[in-house]
């Protein structure tokens, strides 16, 4: 693939980086990244990945844009209220970079559809807002040997970690065995989240995807990066594989995908 003059100019700040260069930019343009959830985390991730020229970006979300989303979901604008989130996200991405191919999935991921949706992608970003989805993404990616980046945010805190097959690194289920019971741990809807937190963590997820694709630097495999905005503490906590993990251990107890029950009051966010 030869670059056009316009592409050379558009991506010049990437190409000049020794960790990216022409080679890395070419890899980005040939890459396929899936973002599950077109909300707080998905919004900045999708915008930066589109701007970066990631060739194919899949985006999955069943919801429509709601007024309460706009405090943090910067990919959607006030005139988008009522529009499917994936459509609004697609328009914003193409406005930034018409070169990218955006594939939309206006559906919630379930044990029935997730394997089929993730299979064509190189890297998956978890931008969902509930534990059943986060465990489902983890399990499907581990079983499908699909690299992915998990993230979670609440109040003034956020965290993320990356899993890549064959690296002997822990998966999300190594750290958190199973979803907490309904309402045992508050959701953003119940507890709130500062808008820019979604921006910080979503951008870090986009960076994990870019680093995975280009091979630049180190990924957050084997560590959980946590950020507390109130104390300004970024901490990289070492985590190791759980030899009894239900899904990624040698003899996993879980061999089929599970649809955990979701707190109904939080389904619409």
């Amino acid at each position, binding site marked *: 693939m030869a670059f056009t003059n316009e592409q050379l100019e558009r991506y010049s700040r990437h190409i000049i980086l020794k960790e990216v260069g022409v080679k890395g930019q070419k890899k980005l343009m040939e890459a396929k990244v899936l973002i599950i*959830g*077109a*909300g*707080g*985390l*998905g919004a900045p991730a999708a915008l930066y990945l589109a701007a970066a020229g990631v060739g194919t970006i899949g985006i999955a*979300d069943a919801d429509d844009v709601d007024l309460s989303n706009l405090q943090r*979901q910067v990919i959607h604008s006030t005139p988008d209220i009522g529009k499917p989130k994936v459509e609004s996200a697609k328009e914003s991405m193409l406005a930034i970079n018409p070169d990218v191919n955006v594939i939309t999935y206006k559906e919630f991921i379930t044990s029935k559809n997730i394997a089929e949706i993730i299979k064509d992608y190189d890297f998956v970003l*978890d*931008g*969902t*807002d*509930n*534990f059943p989805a*986060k465990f489902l993404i983890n399990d499907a990616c581990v079983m499908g040997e699909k690299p992915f980046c998990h*993230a*979670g*945010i*609440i109040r003034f*805190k*956020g*965290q993320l970690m990356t899993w890549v097959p064959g690296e002997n690194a822990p998966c999300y289920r*190594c*750290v*958190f065995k199973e979803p*907490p019971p309904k309402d*045992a*741990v*508050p*959701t*953003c809807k119940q507890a709130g*989240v500062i808008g820019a937190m*979604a921006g910080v963590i979503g951008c870090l997820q986009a960076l994990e995807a870019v680093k995975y694709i280009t091979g630049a630097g180190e990924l957050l495999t084997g560590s*959980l990066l946590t950020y507390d905005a109130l104390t300004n*503490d970024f*901490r990289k*906590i*070492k*985590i*190791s594989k*759980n030899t*009894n993990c239900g899904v990624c251990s040698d003899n996993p107890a879980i061999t089929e995908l599970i649809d955990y029950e979701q707190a109904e009051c939080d389904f619409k*966010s």
Partner: protein
Amino acid sequence: MTVIVAGKKKEYEEGLTVKQLIEKENVENPLYVTVTLNDEFVQSANLETTVLKDGDEVEFLYFMGGGR
């Protein structure tokens, strides 16, 4: 003895268990926190019987369910 909790040095009396540390540190949702001791997970069944030693490093990992 000194225990390093989430990167900060804390002084605690000898014989403290991980379960007691969770209480003393006022961990939010203590039933649903994951604990690592010197980079290894402490199984929830062992929280009460795991006694901390001088210089131990403990991390609390919390569920964060938000994102959309």
